């Protein structure tokens, strides 16, 4: 049985206290990494971690994502930006779930990089709903240079750290490697 399929089946099991504790720690790790690297311009580890979480923890990653979103809201305040956090990471989770059979490191780097490039466009949705198409395009266009940095940063980070992070988290989950 492939690790991906195993993960999907495992995800349907009822959560145990131990599962909840591990998922809470993983959500806290996302939060710490996000805040800790917040000073670096659009260089982040959250995308990589969500990709690896999805590969290793499957559907349970959704719990991690939403706990992470709540932590972010509590820390930074629940502004319009927070609405983005309710769906952007879920989109990444869905993309990874669809491509879960992929075993190529470079492809994961491309996926992470492409997510970085499209981050501004995805985040422009609430601004488009609130202010109209023109406002949404203006908001997205203003951030394009940062999206480019985000995309290249994500690509590089995944290329460098995907294997070690996957190795550590897969060990933590106690299952054989997926890539």
């Amino acid at each position, binding site marked *: 049985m492939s690790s991906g399929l195993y993960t999907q089946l495992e995800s349907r099991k009822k959560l145990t206290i131990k599962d909840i504790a591990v998922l809470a720690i993983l959500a806290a790790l996302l939060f710490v990494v996000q805040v800790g690297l917040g000073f670096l*311009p*659009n260089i982040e580890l959250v995308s990589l971690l969500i990709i690896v979480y999805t590969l290793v923890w499957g559907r349970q990653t959704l719990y991690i994502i939403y706990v992470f979103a709540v932590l972010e809201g509590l820390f930074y*305040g*629940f*502004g319009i930006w927070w609405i983005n956090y309710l769906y952007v990471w879920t989109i990444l989770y869905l993309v990874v779930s669809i491509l879960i059979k992929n075993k*190529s490191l*470079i*492809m994961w780097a*491309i996926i992470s*990089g*492409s997510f970085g*490039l499209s981050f501004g466009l995805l985040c422009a949705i609430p601004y488009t709903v609130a*202010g109209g198409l023109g*406002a949404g*395009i*203006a*908001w997205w*266009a*203003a*951030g*394009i*240079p*940062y*999206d*480019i940095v985000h*995309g*290249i940063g994500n*690509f590089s980070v995944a290329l460098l750290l995907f294997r070690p992070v996957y190795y550590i988290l897969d060990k933590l989950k106690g299952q054989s490697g997926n890539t």
Partner: protein
Amino acid sequence: MTKKQNKKIIAGLFIFVIIIVALAIGYKFLKPQPVKGEKAVEITVVSADQSEKIYNIQTDAEYLQQVMDETEGLTYSGTEGEFGMMVDAVNDEIASYEENSAYWAFYINGEYCNYSISEQPVADGDEFRIVYTVGE
């Protein structure tokens, strides 16, 4: 790794680079262009106590930061961040996000400014508002 997988990776890399180039070109055309020549610009500073101070300026400046530098009686300071200068103080009034989630919000003609003050173009007749704002 099979030839088919190699082709997929090369195609993926190619598309990734093409998207970056397309975004860079898109930005060049979508970002507001600076306007040359003389302009009349109004800047209103709204303090924490809601009092307003209005400045009317004639300027050749192309970006808001240059206009603010030229405006007599208007002072500001801040820190350079990833999105340009984050203005912390206007007319010696400090907005501290750490203390009470306060910040200086910039508006152009009633709309929130999407660009930092060094990248916000200025046109004749523009009305800027710099408002002390307390976040949620």
